[in-house]
């Protein structure tokens, strides 16, 4: 069997596994967010918070909950890093500098997991396990909560009520993320991922001398890092590090974990709005883009155009032998089409076009299938844009899922899709125009520009992967990328929740012969087209200067 066929078979196996998990997990999540029963452990947690989980919230109250929880999260994680030097159980590692601590705190709270630090030399057990890994759970749960609030906006009528943020947050953690992560972590340990609390480990070498590495709760963090589409590695090499991702099977399993919740949420959405077919249409849109991108990525990586790869005879720079080109291509595409940003191979050393595909995946807004929760709400915003475009063509007020898309709704959706492109393009322009930021580039020319464009794209879209040649641990990048992550996460959330509130207040419009059938393949086609065209028009000039120029030159 050749590597190309093996790559295709791995893709098919992955699709089969995702298909098997789709209905059970989607059904489970729908039940989690619709049930009015509380588990005993949840009741203890609500008592600890001092919140009544049965109080319904309007969108403004829901948003205040999200923001308060996130602000506290940033401050807590910042303090934990600044105090690392005096925290017990931290291997004697020193405190993190203020700008890097700010960047990292924001990064993990916003589900971005951009890392300007080297995990193995900077972060001790307490910060990793009780700080970073905790945000891996709760930032994912916040994402799902906001998505569920939007879905309730579609499902409910004549009320402004969107549910209770604390209940949605706690249930997401307790009933979905912790059980999945616990099982996944044990599977990863069985493959060889480490899981211990030992200190610095000194191990003899074959050729004499010794090497030192730090132990840690790696498997437990790796599991939620993928399931929560977070992506922050325990070690600098992220999922390329053999202790995080030891075998070909663990690699495929990690890709599965990245994709399973975002895809299954379309089922949850379908059930909650009372039509699983509407969920299938969204799923089909996500799957079409994802499969298309994976195919393109495999093609360009196997073709390996580029001077260094021509000499080497393959695009193996930055890739591990055990994964090979095929599953590295699947991983890279999946991590950038979700908000994950974990890497099992280094995107900066992909072919010019391959690097461009990873960037374009993020520029689409990470909606195919996108981050946990954020993928679904991002895609539903695009669906609203698509029905609006269709409505313009035939000259009638657009509707989606029985709700009128009026002036207020379309304004909110339009504002949503403007936020991240504005952040990416404005900050990239500033970084290129100012004299010093460009000093951080490792590569020059088109690829150097790509490093900076990639960084702002990754931060603003809350992805977290990097063209890691860029030395991002400078005050300029730590601060501006931190700002991009904050604004790129929470400003869109404001629009999503405002939209949810406005939809929930409407009374449903009965479907007529003139209603656009949004559960049909025609709509899926329209939606895919709208996504690609809007993104293409926004980013084409920037992409032409970077990856396209590089890809066409080789």
């Amino acid at each position: 069997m050749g590597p190309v066929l093996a790559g295709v078979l791995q893709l098919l196996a992955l699709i089969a596994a995702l298909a098997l998990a789709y209905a059970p997990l989607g059904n489970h999540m729908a039940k989690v967010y619709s049930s009015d029963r509380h588990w005993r452990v949840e009741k203890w947690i609500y008592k600890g918070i001092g919140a009544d989980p049965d109080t319904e919230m309007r969108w403004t109250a829901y948003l205040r909950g999200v923001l308060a929880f996130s602000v506290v999260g940033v401050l807590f994680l910042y303090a934990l890093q600044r105090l690392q030097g005096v925290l017990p159980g931290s291997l004697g590692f020193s405190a993190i500098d203020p700008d890097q601590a700010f960047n990292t705190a924001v990064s993990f709270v916003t589900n971005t997991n951009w890392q300007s630090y080297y995990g193995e030399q900077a972060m001790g057990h307490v910060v990793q396990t009780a700080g970073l890994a905790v945000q891996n759970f709760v930032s994912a749960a916040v994402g799902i909560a906001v998505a569920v609030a939007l879905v309730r906006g579609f499902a409910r009528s004549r009320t402004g009520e969107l549910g209770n943020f604390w209940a949605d947050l706690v249930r997401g953690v307790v009933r979905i993320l912790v059980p999945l992560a616990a099982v996944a972590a044990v599977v990863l340990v069985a493959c060889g991922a480490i899981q211990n609390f030992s200190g610095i480990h000194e191990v003899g070498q074959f050729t004499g001398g010794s090497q030192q590495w730090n132990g840690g709760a790696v498997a437990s963090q790796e599991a939620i890092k993928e399931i929560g589409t977070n992506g922050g590695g325990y070690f600098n090499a992220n999922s390329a590090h053999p202790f995080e991702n030891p075998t070909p099977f663990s690699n495929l399993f990690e890709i599965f974990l990245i994709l399973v919740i975002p895809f299954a949420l379309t089922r949850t959405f379908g059930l909650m709005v009372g039509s699983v077919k509407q969920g299938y249409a969204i799923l089909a849109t996500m799957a079409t883009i994802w499969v298309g991108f994976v195919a393109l990525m495999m093609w360009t990586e196997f073709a390996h155009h580029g001077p260094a790869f021509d000499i080497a005879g393959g695009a193996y720079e930055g890739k591990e032998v055990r994964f090979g080109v095929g599953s590295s291509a699947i991983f890279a595409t999946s991590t950038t089409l979700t908000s994950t940003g974990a890497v099992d191979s280094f995107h900066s050393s992909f072919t010019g076009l391959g690097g461009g595909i990873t960037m374009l995946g993020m520029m689409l807004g990470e909606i195919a299938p996108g981050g946990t929760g954020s993928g679904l709400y991002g895609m539903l915003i695009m669906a609203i844009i698509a029905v609006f475009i269709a409505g313009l063509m035939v000259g009638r007020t657009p509707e989606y899922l029985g709700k009128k898309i009026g002036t207020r709704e379309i304004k909110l959706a339009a504002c949503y899709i403007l936020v991240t492109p504005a952040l990416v393009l404005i900050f990239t322009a500033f970084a290129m125009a100012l004299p010093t930021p460009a000093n951080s580039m490792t590569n020059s020319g088109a690829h150097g520009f790509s490093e900076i464009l990639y960084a702002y794209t990754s931060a603003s879209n809350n992805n977290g992967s990097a063209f890691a040649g860029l030395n991002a641990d400078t005050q300029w990048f730590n601060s501006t990328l931190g700002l991009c992550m904050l604004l790129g996460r929470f400003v869109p959330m404001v629009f999503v929740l405002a939209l949810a509130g406005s939809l929930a207040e409407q009374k449903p419009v009965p479907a007529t012969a003139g209603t656009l059938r949004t559960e049909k393949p025609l709509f899926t086609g329209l939606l895919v087209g709208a996504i690609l065209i809007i993104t293409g028009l926004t980013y084409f000039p920037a992409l032409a200067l970077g990856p396209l120029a590089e890809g066409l030159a080789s």
Partner: protein
Amino acid sequence: MNNSVVNTGRLLGAGLRALLVLTLLTGVVYPLAVTGVAQALFTNKANGSEIKADGKVVGSSLIGQQGYSLDYFQPRPANGLGVNSVNTQYRLILSGATNRSADNPELIKWVREAKAKVVKDNSTADYKVEPAQVPADAVTSSGSGLDPNISPQYADIQVHRVAEKNGLPVAEVRKLVDEHTEGRTLGFIGEPRVNVLELNIALRELTKGS
């Protein structure tokens, strides 16, 4: 006192309590429970898959090592590997890739030199390695810099050199490589590979025996 300030304070208090309770669950109970299960069921793996030779720990079967003499099988290049620059009371391996792009002059130079070296090192009196035989993994750095494996092709072109250096028959060394070649998992997952450390440990056993 302003009403909204009081409300904001109350809300932030709730946020803090929520964070602390969830930290207890996901940052203390969860990792400890997983560690307990992992240590009970997979003790060796959970602690880094350490591997012994002559009764001494000589590394982890998952972590590639550099610095083998030409008597042994060579690993992939690791130009992205570093040592720690902070907390320098330790000497930690810093995993990482080169992050050089395909048109980066430095990478082109590294690949070209690595290729020439692989050809030169592995050509013996009666065996000539052709540049076209050298697989891509032999001349490129991995993502982690710690890749424990090489491709069977790269192991294969090293067989003659290793046999000659150790005074072993070529067939015997080739058999050793075959025994240490792992195919794709279930026939299609990942790529075939040879674990360099395990192979070299077995090679040392063999040379000691003969």
